[in-house]
């Protein structure tokens, strides 16, 4: 992997992304690059927040880590092993350890399956056999996420959004994973329910020693949960820093704009001039910074090369030309 994002600390790495690219070839329209050369490492026990607008490639990245989509280039390592070369038992073992929670809990649960059965599928995968043992584990998991064992007999449409997301969490925890991809787990929930789920996520992480990849467009939520944050813009990692540093001193102009525009971070600054919206996504023939059309202080050099991530201060990486 590239020097720029090699971890400086001596924590064990759980997930390593090495130069991941993903190109989509939609029918009838030109292909486009959803992810370009993304490299990063997730340490054991941390929550890594991945921020970006819709279409920035953040969900695609989550799916690639879980081997639910394959990259066009690059490698994913989980616990030191190449995820895409896993076969048979080793793949099953990876599936056990890496789980996912999606944005819309309603869509993430089979509408024709009782929620207890959905959780039980994972319990069985976790290696627990015997109806009695499985049922006990399902009840235990449901209680763990703040539901009652009686909920197991219900169908998804009989539960509320918050309860469904709890079921999804229970299912994700059922094979006793060590890593969870949380793909916007609260953005389809109401504010009052969102806080309940976030608290639950914090508690589960502490109790079970999990590692989270927390994908969200909501900066406030990311800030509360994350230890480190990566900012994706048009499929490129433009900034990566400890959460505190990023929110206190954003370096990339895009991160700054995001923070300025995000309603949670913004107080009465109605006079902030908003950068114009890009209208076309035509692919450039020559390399240039993707953020150039919107950048408030572009340099001449930005027009001729794509900036690479470099370490601006310890642990704080940014893909932007250093200011003179």
């Amino acid at each position, binding site marked *: 992997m590239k020097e720029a994002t090699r971890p400086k600390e001596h924590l064990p790495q759980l997930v390593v992304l090495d130069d991941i690219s993903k190109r989509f070839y939609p029918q009838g329209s030109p292909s486009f690059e959803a992810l370009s050369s993304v490299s990063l490492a997730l340490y054991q026990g941390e929550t890594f927040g991945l921020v970006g607008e819709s279409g920035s490639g953040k969900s695609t990245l989550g799916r690639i880590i879980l081997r639910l989509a394959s990259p066009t280039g690059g490698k994913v390592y989980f616990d030191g092993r190449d995820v895409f070369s896993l076969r048979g038992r080793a793949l099953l073992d990876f599936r056990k350890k890496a789980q996912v929670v999606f944005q819309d809990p309603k869509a993430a649960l089979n509408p024709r399956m009782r929620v207890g059965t959905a959780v039980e599928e*994972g319990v069985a995968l976790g290696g627990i056999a015997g109806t009695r043992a499985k049922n006990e584990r399902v009840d235990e998991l449901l209680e763990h996420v703040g539901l009652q064992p009686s909920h197991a007999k219900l169908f998804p449409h009989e539960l509320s959004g918050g309860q469904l997301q709890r079921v*999804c969490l229970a*299912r994700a925890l059922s094979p006793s994973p060590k890593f969870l991809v949380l793909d916007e787990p609260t953005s389809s929930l109401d*504010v*009052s329910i969102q806080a*309940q789920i976030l608290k639950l996520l*914090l508690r589960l992480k502490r109790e079970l020693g999990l590692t989270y990849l927390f994908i969200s467009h909501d900066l406030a939520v990311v800030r509360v949960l994350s230890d480190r944050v990566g900012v994706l813009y048009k499929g490129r990692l433009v900034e990566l820093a400890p959460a505190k540093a990023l929110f206190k001193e954003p370096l990339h102009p895009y991160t700054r704009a995001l923070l300025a525009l995000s309603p*949670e971070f913004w107080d009465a600054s109605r006079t902030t001039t908003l950068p114009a919206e890009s*209208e076309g996504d035509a692919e450039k023939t020559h390399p240039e910074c993707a953020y150039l059309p919107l950048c408030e202080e572009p340099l001449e050099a930005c027009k001729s090369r794509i900036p690479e991530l470099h370490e601006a201060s310890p642990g704080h990486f940014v893909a932007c030309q250093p200011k003179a």
Partner: protein
Amino acid sequence: MAGSRPLKSSPLLLTSLLFLIGILTLAMLGPWLSPFSPYEIDLTQTNLPPGLAHPFGTDALGRDLFVRAWGGARISLFVGFAAALIDLGLGLMLGGLAGYIGGKWDTAFMRSVEVLYGIPYIMVVLLLAVILGPGVFSLIVGMTLTGWIPMARLVRGEVFRAKEEDFVLAATAMGQGPFRILLWHILPNVMSPVLVALTLTIPQAVFLEAFLAFIGLGVPLPRASLGTLITEGARESWYYPWQLFIPATILCSTLLAFNTLGDTLRDMLDPKRGEPAPRPLVRGSVNIPEIPPEKTLGAPLLTLEQACVRFLTPRGELPAIREVSLTLQPGEMLALVGESGSGKSTLGRSIVGLLPKKGSLVSGKCLFMGQELRLPRLGPLDQLGKPKLAMVFQNPLGSLNPTMQAGKQVAEALVSARMLSWAAAKDEALHLFKEVGIQNQRRCFFAYPHELSGGMRQRVVFAVMLALSPSLLIADEPTTALDVATQARILALLTKLKTTRGLGVLFITHNLALAKGWADRVSVLYAGEIVEEGPSRRLFQDPRHPYTKGLLDSIPKLDADNPDNALFALPGSPPDPYTLHKGCAFAPRCPVARPYCKDEPAPWVTLEDGHRARCFAVKEALLL
């Protein structure tokens, strides 16, 4: 699957189902109900009319028509069921695999299926009847040889869609094998359309068999299907009409019952059933009489007094809006804040008159510029003269005509609303594009909606809205589908229009931060009631109602060091609107609820600057 509840709620389904069960039972048991044999010839009893001994009469050879008719129905239905079930089996297997595997296999499968499908169905059946000789077996083989293709295509399409669903991805992430996923997660979810197709394939096969029997290619004599009996009866229909009439009635009513069953099943299994049909209208507009200018001066733009909306649903009456009163001044943005199910969208729609006509009861007063709005509020746009009320929805793509260039849609609105010439309308449209912040106006003018980004689409919707030059805009989550940057841009645009044009905006949102940032005043809605309202700054700095407080505390705090302190979670979840009690709807979740909160309606407490809250605790705190 269709449980007992939908059965009860659809008499048509129940009737057709019972009828079919009756026909099937008679077809199975019919021959035993009569002492006669279907092949027993009795030349002393020919062509008897229906009577006690022979309920359906006898034919030219004196055979009992009752046994023959039900025996015939049995053959016809057997052919129908067998053909349909074989189609189903082949279709599920091949279509399911093609859809699930996808890629090159799927392409190869689909191309070969299309070639097979090009051969006329009836030709195959005729050919096989000739080659294999007429008979039940050759009929079924002929019918299923290409008959499975429509089913396979249907299943493939459904599987293709279902395998992209999140729960299938989750099952994959769970390490489940492809066959388990196909059997447990995908197939159960594609069964509804398949079931409908099945109920429509059976009568098709039954009818085809009758047709083949009619042209002499049916089951060989002396066995007779319904088709054979009809053919025989048709010959004698002038003298002995019942010989035609009885088997024909059995056939027709069976086909009708199957089709009715299929139709009602399709309606019933449609997930959108019961929801109001999506409406193509971009904007609701109100037919308002010309109001003399002096009358509108000083009057609020919009006044709601004791507005109530109730929906009639199968579960009973649903109170969606309960006695909501509010006012909106020109040039003001009033945010209507609430969680899902709080009734905020219903309120917006009720003002414009977009509620489903069936099953919604609206009461209360709605004054627009001092004039009462009455139902029906919608008329064709070109009759309106000057529309003054417009509505923008969350999904801009649903509000734009996908087959029309963006600029033309704006120009069209201008032509009809302001009576401009087409050329003038085009210029004005470009001007409006500039006003809503579109930079490359010409390019956007000729672009189709799908070619534009979400933010640009919403801008085009706003341009259409401006073309109508309304004085009041109801914006229902106009930025929810957009990312933060675009969100801020759209709201900045609304704020600009507010000041430059004096536009009044009713901004419906679930996002407190947006309301805090952009709205002048805020009304907080909980379970269909306003619980607190006031100037934005006051309300967010000093929220009084426990619900507003809890809601604001639920937003992650950014300055806390310990993440646990940064979060406050309101306990419980919003109430079931069917079981609301008389008092405050928030009482069961309220940390400061008094014992009487559940039983008595909470009083309005007026604070400073038009800041009001509806709560016993606030009132008591004020009295202390």
